[in-house]
């Protein structure tokens, strides 16, 4: 397709150039003639000036030269020579010392005498000039004005602006040697004319093709002078490329369009691969990472399609896994890892269930007084040690730390996971806590911390247990009167000077044997009925 278009375009271009060159040659001649005519017309007008005529015979030579020079400047010629009827130079604007010498070409003046005036081409001082010889009439000729216009690159360039073709004026001597007088061709191309333009080229009728460098030039050679007084020729040339330029532009545009098409399809396939292949491989990579236990990842797939949803789901999954990992870690800090696992194995949901739970409340007695007496760092150190030890004991018995309230610990037995012996677990935990406290106090004394005393209240009741709070911040806890009672019982340890006080409901559910004393029947705040309270002293057979 391209080739076909190319050939058609070339053939078309050739015929267009051929036609253009002929027209352009005519235009060239007209411009050259007009240039001469206009300028010599003004010279003729000036030559008719009476004062000018008069001065020719009445002034000294230097003045005459300056008059001629002034005339030259007025009409913008390159030189003017004033020649007498005896063919001697009267004045010359280039060489003042020519005055009185024979004019360079008597034949030219004689020809002008014959014709009245003359247009020709002449060489002086190596330059090629278009010349016009006009008489100074008074009213017969009294002298001749030879007006010269240099043929140079600038002149041709001016003409080229009008006709577009490259113009070269050259001379071909009898030996066939080429001399370029002037040309609009770039220096590099000008050199290439040597060897390309020979005598044979002159006889070519019409256009001929001359290759200069990479470019084909359709060329037209014609004598510069119609009357043929010199062997100067004018060479008009138009490059095929110039004419084909619009076509080349079109072709380039086509190529660009195809390229853009290619780029677009490439981009589309890139996009497809990016939107399908890459997310899939990212997902696979993600799955592998999760396989390896790294939940801390986020897949940056943001597209809004099935893959995007999948990635979102994957990210949610990873986040879920990570949260679970984190929760299990956190749970592990507060509850026994076993319980944490058990908790995590169930679906965590808001709200709770009614459950029978044994609540253990422990508190450091007169902690407030202690914290006033000792600097906070010591108190904090003491408290951390105390809570760590106590928490470990509670967990070892299957209890769950519900919360720390300052120095107080609230622990649950039977929630979230029930055991048949939750009450016994609580009691044993309480007893162990007291035992552990004795050892702790020994340690404290060694480090200058005063011994502390604790009270523990235990109550068993049906409470609402579950995750409470918002979806983001869940807190597993229990709510109910039973909690308050446990706290109350702990409070009562101070009043009855007992270490562990149990409620009646707890007492009734004891399965093992313990040393227990009934203390009193107490009315507890917020309770209409009184309850019997017991003090747990120790285990049986262990005194």
């Amino acid at each position: 397709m391209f080739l076909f278009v190319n050939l058609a375009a070339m053939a078309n271009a050739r015929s267009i150039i051929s036609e253009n060159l002929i027209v352009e040659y005519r235009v060239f001649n007209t411009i050259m003639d007009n240039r001469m005519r206009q300028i010599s017309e003004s010279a003729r007008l000036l030559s008719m000036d009476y004062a000018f005529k008069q001065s020719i015979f009445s002034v000294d030579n230097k003045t005459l030269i300056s008059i001629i020079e002034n005339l030259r400047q007025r009409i913008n010629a390159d030189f003017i020579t004033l020649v007498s009827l005896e063919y001697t130079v009267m004045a010359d604007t280039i060489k003042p010392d020519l005055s009185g010498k024979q004019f360079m070409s008597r034949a030219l003046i004689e020809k002008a005498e014959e014709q009245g005036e003359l247009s020709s081409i002449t060489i002086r001082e190596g330059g090629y000039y278009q010349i016009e010889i006009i008489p100074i009439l008074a009213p017969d000729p009294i002298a001749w004005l030879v007006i010269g216009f240099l043929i140079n690159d600038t002149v041709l360039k001016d003409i080229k602006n009008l006709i577009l073709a490259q113009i070269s004026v050259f001379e071909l001597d009898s030996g066939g040697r080429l001399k370029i007088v002037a040309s609009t061709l770039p220096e590099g191309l000008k050199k290439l004319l040597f060897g390309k333009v020979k005598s044979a080229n002159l006889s070519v009728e019409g256009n001929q093709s001359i290759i200069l460098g990479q470019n084909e030039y359709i060329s037209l050679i014609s004598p510069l002078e119609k009357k043929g007084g010199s062997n100067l020729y004018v060479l008009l040339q138009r490059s095929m490329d110039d004419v084909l330029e619009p076509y080349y532009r079109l072709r380039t545009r086509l190529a660009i369009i195809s390229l853009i098409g290619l780029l677009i399809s490439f981009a589309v396939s890139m996009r497809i691969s990016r939107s399908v292949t890459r997310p899939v491989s990212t997902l696979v990579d993600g799955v592998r990472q999760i396989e390896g236990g790294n939940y801390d990842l986020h897949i940056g797939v943001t597209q809004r399609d099935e893959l995007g949803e999948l990635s979102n789901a994957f990210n949610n999954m990873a986040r879920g896994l990570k949260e679970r990992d984190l929760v299990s870690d956190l749970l592990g800090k507060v509850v026994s890892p076993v319980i944490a696992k058990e908790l995590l194995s169930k679906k965590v949901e808001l709200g709770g269930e009614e459950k029978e739970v044994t609540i253990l409340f422990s508190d450091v007695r007169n902690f407030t007084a202690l914290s006033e007496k000792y600097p906070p760092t010591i108190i904090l150190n003491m408290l951390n040690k105390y809570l760590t030890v106590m928490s470990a004991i509670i967990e070892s018995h299957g209890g769950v730390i519900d919360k720390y309230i300052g120095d107080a610990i609230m622990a649950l037995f039977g929630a979230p996971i029930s055991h048949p012996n939750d009450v016994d677990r609580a009691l044993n935990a309480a007893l162990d806590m007291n035992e552990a406290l004795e050892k702790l106090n020994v340690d404290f004394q060694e480090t200058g911390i005063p011994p502390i005393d604790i009270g523990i209240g235990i109550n068993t009741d049906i409470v609402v247990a579950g995750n409470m709070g918002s979806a983001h911040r869940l807190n597993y806890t229990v709510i109910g009167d039973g909690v308050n009672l446990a706290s109350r019982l702990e409070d009562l340890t101070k009043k009855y000077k007992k270490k562990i006080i149990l409620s009646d409901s707890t007492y009734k559910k004891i399965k093992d044997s313990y040393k227990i004393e009934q203390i009193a029947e107490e009315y507890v705040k917020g309770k209409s009925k009184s309850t019997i309270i017991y003090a747990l002293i120790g285990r049986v057979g262990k005194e």
Partner: protein
Amino acid sequence: MTTFATYVITLLCLLLPTMGYCYDLVSEVKDGEGALVENAVITATPLSGEIKKPEKNLTAEIDQIDKTFVDFVTPIMVGTTLVFPNSDKIRHQVYSFSEAKKFEIPLYPPGQGRATPVTFDKPGVVVLGCNIHDWMKAYVYVVETPFFAKTGKNGKATIKDIPPGQYKIEVWHPYIKKSSATVKQPVNIGKESDMKVDFVIDVKKALTVRRAPGSIGGGVYP
């Protein structure tokens, strides 16, 4: 003595024209193509070199009619005074740059005797121009002999009353080419066979400023 003789002969010629004592020379001038040439001047110069001085001041005139010099060619003898009447309604300025007589008559008004007369005291060709009308041109041919005549449209000129003797007969024309044969001598005036001297001359195209088209009247000469 000889001056006296010539004087007598001339007097005789004036008194006795029909007696055949003096002779008329007829010339016909053609160009190379056989065309009759107008405005050629034929002169007869005695080979003896004896030329009688005119007894009175010679005068001639070149009028200006319709911005044209009339006549186009005026042959005069050395010493002749030319007057330049102006028959137009506008002014003219007559000048000459010719070696034989350089002069300039600044713009002068219509009428007779308004321009200073000019005496031509050297032989030669004097080309007259008008400073304000480029095409206006006239030739004054100043000769040393009193025997001259100008060809008319028929190409013929007759020099009247030439005393017999040996003469040099010459032709001149404003546009004559140098290649032309212009002299015939000796011509024996009085001898029947020599009384008609014809010339064939080469005439070049005139280098003349053309009068603008549409102008009334002549002014454009061959």
